[in-house]
């Protein structure tokens, strides 16, 4: 086939390779199997050692903040799925919570329990995915296959709930749209009962593995000052010696009613982060067991409400819409014109699997947000590569990118 003519010049035309100072410039990405998306790194090398790193992002910038300014609040919900697409529900939740805080809604207890279940399932999914991809990057293919196997069970549970495997849109402003399906609890219990043995499998494969230890221990050390200064959150911060988990410190939903520990470490290297992820999976399982009990308590108490009652902002239940005239009118207005939150500003942070996921909303009383800023943890976890990579060797780049757990839907938005 004849080549379709294009006017792209050779890419490195403007870079001088033949430099006096023996520096080599290596271009890494934007399409690289271990860059976890579309990260481009310009690495300045002395021999194999990196002296300067320049991460270049924006290859997945789709303009979500601009989209939000041109959408009614409920319309934006599915778009949040595509930010951190490994754990979609946690984005849905962050957005729903910030709008609820803005309009001052109180969500029914049963909806809160279901939301917590979804959040923790998403955390498990995200951590399993992290383990799989990082292990694959380092060469541990078995762990990749094992972790994906377990992740599929969770995806089945979520799919049974909301019908989608990846992009859930499972949470609404004011509650959740559906009750969990009949098999949800039993499937979840089956999974959770098997999980400790599965985690032990991964740890048996990795914990004392010589290659894994060489690639992980004492590599990519993030000091406490660096982590704070770069705005790191989540496992990145906790591995560097700050015991800060928003679920514990500024509890939202029913996190103040459940028992769980916040694992942390003061080593700050790749291995500490790996241990932290494994430990967090165990804690998530612990929370999920407790939410199952809470859910059954709700069922016993006859607590059936799933959406908050706020006719100005939230549509009535489907049955009311179909039978009552006023509810139908309200629903029509809310769908066509959108809700109009009060004038004001809100910044709400939640603990997503990657770190602090914040939504800043400036509302001017219209149906569209005047300004919506998405504070995504991965953005700064990518930025820290600028300071973290110099001094390391080329193979370390892969393991460091792996353990920072960056997702490019989130970095570029």
């Amino acid at each position: 086939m004849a080549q379709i003519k294009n006017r792209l010049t050779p890419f490195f035309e403007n870079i001088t390779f033949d430099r006096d100072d023996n520096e080599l410039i290596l271009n890494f990405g934007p399409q690289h199997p271990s860059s976890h998306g579309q990260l481009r790194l310009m690495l300045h090398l002395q021999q194999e050692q990196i002296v300067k790193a320049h991460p270049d992002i924006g290859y997945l910038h789709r303009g979500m903040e601009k989209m939000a300014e041109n959408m009614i609040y409920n319309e934006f919900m599915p778009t949040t799925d595509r930010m951190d697409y490994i754990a979609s529900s946690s984005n849905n939740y962050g957005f729903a919570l910030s709008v609820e805080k803005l309009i001052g809604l109180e969500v029914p207890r049963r909806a809160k329990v279901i939301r917590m279940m979804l959040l923790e399932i998403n955390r498990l999914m995200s951590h399993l995915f992290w383990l799989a991809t990082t292990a694959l990057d380092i060469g541990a293919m078995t762990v990749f296959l094992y972790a994906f196997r377990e992740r599929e069970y969770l995806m089945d549970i979520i799919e049974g709930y909301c019908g989608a495997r990846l992009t859930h849109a499972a949470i609404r402003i004011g509650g959740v749209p559906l009750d969990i399906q009949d098999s949800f609890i039993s499937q979840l219990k089956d999974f959770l009962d098997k999980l400790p043995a599965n985690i032990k499998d991964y740890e048996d494969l990795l914990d004392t593995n010589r290659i894994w230890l060489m690639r992980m221990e004492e590599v990519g050390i993030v000091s406490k000052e660096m982590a704070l200064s770069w705005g790191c959150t989540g496992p990145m911060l906790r591995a560097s010696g700050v015991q800060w988990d928003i679920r514990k410190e500024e509890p939202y939903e029913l996190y103040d009613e459940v028992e769980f520990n916040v694992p942390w470490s003061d080593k700050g290297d790749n291995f500490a982060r790996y241990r932290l992820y494994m430990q967090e999976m165990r804690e998530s399982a612990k929370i999920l067991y407790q939410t199952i009990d809470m859910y059954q308590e709700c069922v016993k108490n006859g607590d059936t409400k799933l959406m908050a009652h706020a006719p100005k902002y939230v549509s009535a239940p489907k049955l009311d819409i179909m039978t009552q005239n006023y509810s139908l009118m309200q629903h029509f207005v809310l769908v066509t014109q959108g809700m109009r939150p009060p004038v004001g500003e809100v910044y709400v942070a939640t603990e997503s699997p990657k770190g602090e996921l914040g939504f800043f909303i400036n509302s001017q009383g219209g149906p569209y947000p005047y300004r919506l800023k998405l504070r995504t943890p991965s953005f700064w976890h990518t930025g820290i590569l600028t300071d973290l990579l110099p001094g390391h060797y080329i193979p370390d780049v892969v393991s460091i990118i792996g353990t920072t757990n960056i997702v490019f839907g989130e970095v570029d938005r």
Partner: protein
Amino acid sequence: MRAYTPKDNVQAKPYYTDRFYKSPQVAKFAPQSDEVFNADLEAIKAKFDVLDAFIQVEQLVVYINAKDNYGVLELLKDELEYTQLSEMSAIDWLADRGGFEVFYQMLSMNKRKRIRIKLFIEDGQAVNSVEKLFRSADWSEREMFDMFGIEANGHPFMKRILMPYDWQGNPLLKTYPLQGDEFAALYEVDKIYGKEAREEIGPEIRDTARVDRYDSDRFSRLGHEVPKGTEITGNEPANEQSYQEDGGVFLIKKFDKESSVIIDDPQR
């Protein structure tokens, strides 16, 4: 030359607003109602001008002068234990007030408190970079520059971060349409194939509601596709989709529906 259209009124507008509708306000509380916030505010007031301060949704909002931003953030970081800059960006008020509002979202882990520092700058005015205090501002300020065109004085690498370096326009301005301006429309075609290819490749299809049932390029008529350019009569025979030819495939066993097992239980 391309024809440029005016872009003062390009954002989505509610198509109906009740004449008598008055939007409520999110409740604001006096800073004195919270001990910790009050002490922090007093510490800021001792050194800098505070234009306004209130508590909104559990967070203290402080309005300061634009020139004080470095000093206030330094005070917050060094003395008041606000060790992290969670987020910073701007809000476009060009149409109403002729400038931008820049906000800094601070977090104190010891006090478990969050403060938002806000300042107003005129159009074209720059802010002082706080990159020396918080490394996270390095990328945030670049993003703000990219999205709004607000420069930060003293920033080491003030370049675009999300959009390509040769991009024109600042996407988050209210005068920038969601679907891009004339420059954005054919950016990738110009770059890859050159301006000559514009005609051949054609304009972008931005109408999400456009349905062309006779379009063979797309999948709007699954099972009734015809080659491009053929005359459409409307009663084409169905073209059944099957992934194997009827006569079987050389060296490959034909899939037999009858002899296959269907797994009902996904958890098997």
